Each structure stands twice: as structure tokens, then as C-alpha cells.
């Protein structure tokens, strides 16, 4: 076994991961909160008004980062599910299942904020165009994964079954992303582009990117916190959990 595999196995072992995650979680939450406040101030106060929409466009500072997170969280979940299915690594199962509710929440926020913006700007709360429909399917995939995981008694079998659904659902990600290019949709195309110039003024883009960074950091804090609980539940009765429980009990007395 070489040094890298050894390191990998060590970090992946529940007691070690539990400890490392415990150190990281407050940092993630703290940095996420600070970045989020800066991003929101930049977006809601500092950024100039839009030439057509006035102040109403400011919802993109919540809507777009959440939409990106909905996709990113799904990718994270599916990648972990893949590792869990092939290598049967306990930690990957927990990581995948921990990210499902968080991704679902981000997707839900995306749909709600989009709807709130759609009514005054487009003239409707909802329309069945390709982008909106595929985003709704994304939410249902998350809910399906969560439901399947909760429905099976054996935790490890449940994680494998739900992980399989998560993995299959990954085909929806390119559909969500490219729906605005492939079909005629009411939803506009991508504003921020990795390749080529973005269609947004520099004064408006920095709060958007700050918010994107904030939601990413927050997501990892949230995933790690949920994973710690998941590990404790799964390994309940094992020595390392017992030691933590005893130490916690002694601290409270």
C-alpha cells in the first residue's frame, strides 16, 4: 500500500473523518456567513440598478447561486454514490446521503425565487418550459433519493439503493444546464459564462460570484456537519462512538 492509499484510508475511516470534519465545520459556516453578508450587501445595496428591470433584478444574487448549488450538490451526491456503489466505502454513502436534503433545499429556493421574479417580469408564476420543468425534475430526484433512503430499514442497503437512483438521475444535470440552448424557452440563456464574455456588468458580477463562493462554503459546512451525525448513527455501538458519547456525558455532568 503506498502513502497516498494509506492517507486515503486513514482520512476515510469514520473516527478520523469525524474529528477532521469537526474542526472544519465552524470554519466553513463562519467563512460562508461572512462571504454571504458581503455578497448580499454588494448585491442588494452596492450594485447599480438594472437598465430594464430596475431593482427587481436583485433576486439573481440569491436565485443564480442557489441554482448553481442545486446542480453542484447533485454532482457531489452522484459522485459519492458512484464511489459508494463500486468500492462500498461507508463514508461515501454517508456523504452522498447527507448532501441530498441540502441540494433539495437549494433547488427549492431556486424555484421559489424564480417564481417570485417571474410573476412581475414575465407575467406568470410558472410555465412548462424546458428549463423550469427540468429544474422541477431535479427537485423530485432529490426527494426521490431522500424518500428511498428513508424507506429501507438497513442503512447500508438503503444508501446503496438511493445512491443508484442518484447516479442515474445525473443525466438530468446537462439537461438542466443546456435546456436554454437546446430548446426555445421562456427562461433566458446563461448570463455568466466560463467560456467567452459574461453578459453582466462588472459592477454586478462581483456580488454574484461572492454569493456563489459563500453558498459553496456553506454547503460543505452543512454536508460535513450532517455527515458527522450520520457516522455516529451508523457506527452507534462501536468503540470510537462510545468513547465520544462517554466524553460528552462526562462534560455535561
Amino acid at each position, binding site marked *: 500500500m503506498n502513502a497516498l492509499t494509506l492517507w486515503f484510508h486513514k482520512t476515510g475511516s469514520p473516527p478520523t473523518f469525524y474529528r477532521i470534519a469537526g474542526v472544519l465545520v465552524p470554519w466553513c459556516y463562519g467563512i460562508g456567513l461572512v462571504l454571504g453578508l458581503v455578497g448580499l450587501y454588494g448585491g442588494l445595496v452596492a450594485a447599480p440598478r*438594472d437598465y430594464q428591470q430596475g431593482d427587481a433584478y436583485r433576486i439573481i444574487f440569491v436565485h443564480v447561486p442557489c441554482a448553481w448549488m442545486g446542480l453542484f450538490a447533485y454532482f457531489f451526491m452522484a459522485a459519492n454514490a458512484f464511489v459508494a456503489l463500486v468500492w462500498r466505502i461507508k463514508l461515501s454513502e454517508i456523504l452522498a446521503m447527507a448532501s441530498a436534503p441540502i441540494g433539495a433545499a437549494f433547488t427549492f429556493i431556486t424555484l421559489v425565487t424564480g417564481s417570485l421574479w417571474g410573476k*412581475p*417580469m*414575465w407575467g406568470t408564476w410558472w410555465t412548462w418550459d424546458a428549463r423550469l420543468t427540468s429544474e422541477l425534475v431535479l427537485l423530485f430526484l432529490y426527494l426521490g433519493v431522500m424518500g428511498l433512503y428513508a424507506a429501507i430499514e438497513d442503512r447500508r442497503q438503503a444508501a446503496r439503493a438511493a445512491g443508484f437512483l442518484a447516479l442515474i438521475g445525473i443525466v*438530468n444535470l446537462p*439537461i438542466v444546464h443546456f435546456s436554454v440552448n437546446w430548446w*426555445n424557452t421562456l427562461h433566458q440563456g446563461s448570463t455568466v459564462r466560463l467560456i467567452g464574455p459574461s*453578459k453582466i456588468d462588472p459592477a454586478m458580477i462581483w456580488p454574484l460570484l461572492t454569493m456563489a463562493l459563500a453558498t459553496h462554503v456553506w454547503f460543505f459546512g452543512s454536508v460535513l456537519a450532517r455527515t458527522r451525525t450520520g457516522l455516529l448513527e451508523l457506527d452507534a455501538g462501536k468503540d470510537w462512538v462510545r468513547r465520544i458519547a462517554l466524553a460528552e456525558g462526562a462534560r455535561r455532568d
Partner: protein
Amino acid sequence: MTPTRKRRLILVSLVLAAVAAAAGLTALALQQNMTYLYSPTEIEAGHAPESARFRLGGVVLENSLRRASDSLKVDFVVTDRFREMPVEYTGILPDLFREGQSIVATGTVQNGRFVATEVLAKHDETYMPKEVKDAIDKAKSTHADAR
């Protein structure tokens, strides 16, 4: 890698490839008959359903908007810059509705006019402050004058 893991890896990858192929083919098939809207050119070519409701998409032609003085009725022309389609609608128009703006109208064709029951404004992906927009417009007009 142990043989069991290798077998699982191949199996999961194959399932994933199959699902991706299925989704790709579905998307390709839908591309041909999943039409959110029709343009005036497509309507003239007879692609749109004749007596059923469908969506018309295009740009509101400049100086074509007429509002009735005694009701909420509005008339305007939707164009894709090749063909034009007169539209009539009774109701409140969305904030982003203006001449030169893309819209999506739902309704039926009656006697060569599109009678809309719903008018939605389509927003493009450009965001900029008003000052920048004014500067661009100014630069454009001076550039046009210079020619």
C-alpha cells in the same frame, strides 16, 4: 483493484452509459417535436396547429402598439424580422413588455390575427446599469452618424 470491485465498476459504468444514451436520444427526439413556441415565419409555413392554442414568440414591432382608450385591449405586431403577425390581447401586460422586446403570447389564430389569452415577456441574459446602457446607445448613434 479486486476482481469484485472491477466487476462492479464495469457494471455501474455500463448502466450509466446506457442511461446517458437513452437520455441523449430522448433529448434529441424531443428537440424535433417539443416546441415551446412558434415564430411568425413558422406559422406562415403552416407548422403551427390551426384551430388549437399554441404559443407565438417574437419581438414586438416598433411603433406597432395601440391601446384602446376605454378598455384594457391592446393591439400590436409580433415579428421575427422576416414575417409579421398582428396580435390582440385584453389584460395587463408584464413589466418587461415594450416595443422591441421579445414576448411569448398564448392563444389562437382567428381570421389571420392572433388572439392572445396570455402575454409573457421574455427577458434576455444581459444585465447592466442604466448609465452603461445609455453610453452604449450614445456610442452606437454617434457611430451611425459618422457613417
